[in-house]
């Protein structure tokens, strides 16, 4: 199928699974949440923004991070939930900036409030971190056209690995698809630009596959192109 002759290393299709770990750190009220956020490992903040996507849940939750969800469901503070929910992690340079923003939003809310909102005893916020277990599927893709054909078959966890987790692995914060396409020179710059437009944070894992296929179609790579 592929007509490309290139020295680019084949794309190694990888899958992953997440093993969750309780940190033992929890917050029962908003003041404690702010204080604990200043102390917990960055890996825990990462989990509550990104890793939680691999946890048992239904897609398209109202809020895309656990902090906003907790503010809504356990503190019943919609205003805070909305402010936390709109935080966009990719727009921060690193996790420490994201941590600072979270604390700012919460401190601002505490200053506005007449009292410190509390959660019920069994609804405290539990900080979690995770270990990612990475599997080699054995599958190797030689051309972008073949990658396009594969996309509909990729599991949610594989998409997580290549599109979300990848941003921690590549120094430029790219996903695996764009990083691999760069190896072909300028030929796929259009496709790379399309993929760069996908919002990794506000797209569900289930919709990511479709969005990526759309990028390939738009760029005229693979499929019926």
């Amino acid at each position, binding site marked *: 199928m592929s007509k490309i002759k290139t020295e680019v290393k084949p794309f190694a299709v990888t899958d992953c699974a997440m093993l969750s770990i309780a940190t033992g750190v929890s917050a029962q009220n908003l003041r404690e949440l702010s204080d604990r956020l200043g102390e917990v490992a960055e890996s825990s903040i990462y989990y509550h923004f990104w890793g939680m996507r691999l946890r048992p849940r239904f897609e398209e939750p109202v809020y895309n991070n656990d902090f906003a969800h907790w503010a809504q469901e356990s503190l019943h503070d919609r205003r805070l939930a909305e402010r936390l929910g709109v935080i966009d992690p990719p727009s921060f340079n690193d996790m420490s900036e994201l941590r600072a923003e979270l604390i700012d939003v919460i401190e601002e809310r505490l200053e506005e409030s007449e009292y410190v909102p509390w959660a019920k005893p069994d609804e405290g916020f539990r900080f979690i971190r995770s*270990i990612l277990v990475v599997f080699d599927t054995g599958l190797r893709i030689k051309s972008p056209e073949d990658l396009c054909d594969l996309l509909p078959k990729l599991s949610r966890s594989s998409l997580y690995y290549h599109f979300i987790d990848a941003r921690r692995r590549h120094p430029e914060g790219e996903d695996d698809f764009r990083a691999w396409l760069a190896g072909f020179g300028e030929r796929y710059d259009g496709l790379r630009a399309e993929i760069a437009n996908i919002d990794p944070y506000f797209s569900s894992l289930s919709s990511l596959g479709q969005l990526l296929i759309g990028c390939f179609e738009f760029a005229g790579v693979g499929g019926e192109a």
Partner: protein
Amino acid sequence: MNGLLDSYMDITGKATIDHLRQLSKDLEGKTVVHVNSTRVGGGVAEILDKMIPLQQELGLNVSWEVITGDAAFYECTKGFHNALQGTPIDIPDNLIRAYEATNAENAKRLRDQLEAADFVFIHDPQPARLLELCPNRKGKWVWRCHIDLSRPYRRVWKYIQSLVRDYDASIFSLAAFARSLPHTQYLIPPSIDPLSEKNRELDPGEVQAVRDEFGLDPERPLILQVSRFDRFKDPLGVIQAYRLAREFVPRLQLVLAGGGASDDPEGEAVLSEVQMASGDDPDIHILLLPADAHHTINALQRAADIILQKSLKEGFGLTVTEGLWKGKPVIGGNTGGIRMQVIDHHTGYLVDTPEGAALWIRYLLNNRVLLESMGSKGREFVRENFLITRHLRDYLSLMVTLLRGEDSGRIELG
């Protein structure tokens, strides 16, 4: 040679089985011992029943040991169970002594095997003291807690904590159950086996035969709760919910099916309370089933329109998982692991009262299309998250993590 694992492929897909094989490469030949306190009855025994042969097939040298004790031991561990789930009861010293003596007796029998093992999984508090009784242990010891520890009675927890703090790791079903312990606490929900007698597909004739056996009318709606006769399962609340719902659904039938477990001395007392509460209502069917009545439970769950699990406290609630797997919506108590499985308006409804349960029973029985679509969604939810293959993957991942260390936050395989 790979028959058992491969038999799951049709349900889970090939990738899931490949993942298990990749994980097991690091663990080939390692000796693993699981220890609990009952061979039959209850979710723990059911999980181990299949987990052991699957781990064996993956090349691990696995065994399952059961500790045994006298009536005082089981009375003590039942007290632990109740106290850890929040009931403020102190355990008398003589029962604590019986508990410690039973562990010491069992340690005599198991010590050599446990001290030599690469991994020891101790399930729940019953055998928890074995660790301190095996001072020359060479492997990694993991305490697997299946109980809802979200609000334990403090004095009893302090005692159990003193027994489990020296383990290398512990496993809890939910983040809310994790406690303050000086080791890594993994979060691993339990699972069901889709190929077991309790969960395998049945043909309609098999389901009808069980309806006939218990006098259940297939033309009338049926609600079902399967659980031990235990106050935390709130069987009296279920009867109350049934009575409230029946005012609007007069042809409603209720089945309360309880299996016994050899480590539960309270069952009989609760059963008589339930029998008294049901009075002479011919549409309340109280079934005391033997621990191995898996086929009957499977058929009852398939015969039911709605599954109830109105627990007041629940570790995880595998009967919820079983019900969802059979494509039934579940009305469950708003507690513990039920919250992880019953997602309001997706797979069923969480309730805090018998009134809430009655409301949703009435609602679902009047919305058959919704009832069916929730059922399908629930089955897929279980397929992705709560089958034994996922559980096995998590156990293997944990063992690999304990062997390799987890500093980098990732384990690369293949």
